């Protein structure tokens, strides 16, 4: 273990995965990751083509071209940059190219905010990318390595983004176990795609599909997501065996035994919640590690003894409610109608989520459990005096 910045840990893990091509465009708070990677290349520690591009759109497009020719490709972005990549995200997943990126979580403008929330990756929810949310720096580091293995699995072949909270994970120094090259080489085989651009077999990539076939292509993506569901769990187990670290497969429970109230969330906020929950009785945590594919079965199973589930997230869909909240409710509908469900929006635009905020959520959840009246969906930490 050594104390390093989160961005460095992520960059280190990417380096260990031996990407052939890295392309990125600078945007706060993603910058340290790609700067560190550029330095690895500059110091001869990483042999790869580092393409400092003209935009995020080009960043993902370069990764797409590189992946299509058979190279392992990496990019990183956040917020507006991720939004500028939007259409390329869909294109990469539709072409079934296992590009892996670090999606640093940051609020969307306007108003401009460089600070953390998860609105950006939530917006990319439907892009056909696997989304893994990291709880801490170590998990973000490890998820990069797992990510390539999952994405490049022959029966998956989907791009994958490791979502890591901006600043909170990227700019914090903590003790981290940095993977050794030999360990990663043993764990992650070289990328050997079945189909790639080559003059020996001059395939055409990116054909268009008429209405008689498009739907089937999209269905095949869905099937691949289903297989990814299995693969994510397998790779988590394989990683545990190889590295001795485990964060759950699709989900991870914490203090769930006998928990009447379950706080369901993802990302770095879980660390703070754990500190709080340790002091509470009958309150557990359900961490969503894989948001897409969505672990509906696993969530149902994990919540079967709960009375109240409080979904906590740093995003929402204006005009409705938090995206994760909607998804969790949808997963339970038709299956478990007794469960009381509450949604809480916290920490938008870098608003610090404090232990007190979590305590408030627990308080309101308890009240709901005891038959008290509380809004189904609400903001925590709003400054009423400004409104």
């Amino acid at each position, binding site marked *: 273990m050594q104390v390093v910045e989160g961005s460095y840990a992520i960059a280190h893990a990417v380096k260990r995965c031996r990407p052939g091509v890295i392309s990125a465009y600078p945007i706060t708070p993603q910058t340290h990751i790609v700067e560190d990677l550029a330095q690895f290349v500059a110091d001869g520690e990483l042999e790869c083509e580092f393409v400092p591009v003209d935009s995020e759109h080009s960043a993902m497009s370069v990764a797409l071209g590189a992946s299509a020719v058979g190279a392992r490709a990496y990019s990183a972005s956040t917020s507006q940059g991720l939004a500028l990549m939007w259409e390329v995200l869909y294109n990469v997943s*539709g*072409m079934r190219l296992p590009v892996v990126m670090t999606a640093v979580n940051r609020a969307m403008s306007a108003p401009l905010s460089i600070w953390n929330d998860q609105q950006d990756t939530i917006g990319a929810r439907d892009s056909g990318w696997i989304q893994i949310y990291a709880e801490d720096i170590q998990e973000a580091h490890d998820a990069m390595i797992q990510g390539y293995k999952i994405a490049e699995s022959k029966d998956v072949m989907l791009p994958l983004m490791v979502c890591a909270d901006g600043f909170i994970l990227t700019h914090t120094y903590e003790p981290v176990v940095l993977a050794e090259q030999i360990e990663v080489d043993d764990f992650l085989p070289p990328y050997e795609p079945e189909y790639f651009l080559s003059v020996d*077999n001059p395939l055409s990539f990116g054909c268009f599909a008429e209405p008689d076939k498009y739907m*089937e292509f999209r269905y095949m993506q869905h099937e*691949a997501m289903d297989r990814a569901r299995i693969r994510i769990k397998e790779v988590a187990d394989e990683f545990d065996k190889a590295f001795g670290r485990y964060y759950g497969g699709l989900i991870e429970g914490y203090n769930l035994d006998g928990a009447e109230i379950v706080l369901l969330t993802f990302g770095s906020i879980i660390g703070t919640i754990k500190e709080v929950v340790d002091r509470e009785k009958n309150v557990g945590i359900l961490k969503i590690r894989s948001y897409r594919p969505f672990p509906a079965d696993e969530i149902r199973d994990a919540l079967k003894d709960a009375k109240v589930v409080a979904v906590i997230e740093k995003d929402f869909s204006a005009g409705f409610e938090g995206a994760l909240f909607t998804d969790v409710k949808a997963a339970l509908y038709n299956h478990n109608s007794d469960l009381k469900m509450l949604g809480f929006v916290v920490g938008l635009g870098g608003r610090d989520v404090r232990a007190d905020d979590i305590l408030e959520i627990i308080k309101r959840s308890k009240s709901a459990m005891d038959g008290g009246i509380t809004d189904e969906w609400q903001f925590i930490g709003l400054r009423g005096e400004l409104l």
Partner: protein
Amino acid sequence: MKLRIGAIADPGTSVVNLTGGWRTEAPRIEQTLCIRCFNCVIYCPESAVHYSEERGIEFDYDYCKGCGICANECSGRAIYMEMEEK
């Protein structure tokens, strides 16, 4: 046909699409007037004009869309367009 992931296609498969059906006029050639400029071969958008020493210029009516560029560009005025009877 089973779909292949990513809509990845094998090379040159468009040859199954016989575009000759698009044609209303068809090119014909008077071989004795051909001066071997090969403009017809060079400028055919369909790659549907072929030349061999034995047979001279030939049109591949499976793909010829009848655009008439070959006739227009023919240096010897050997190619002409003819209404196609179907």
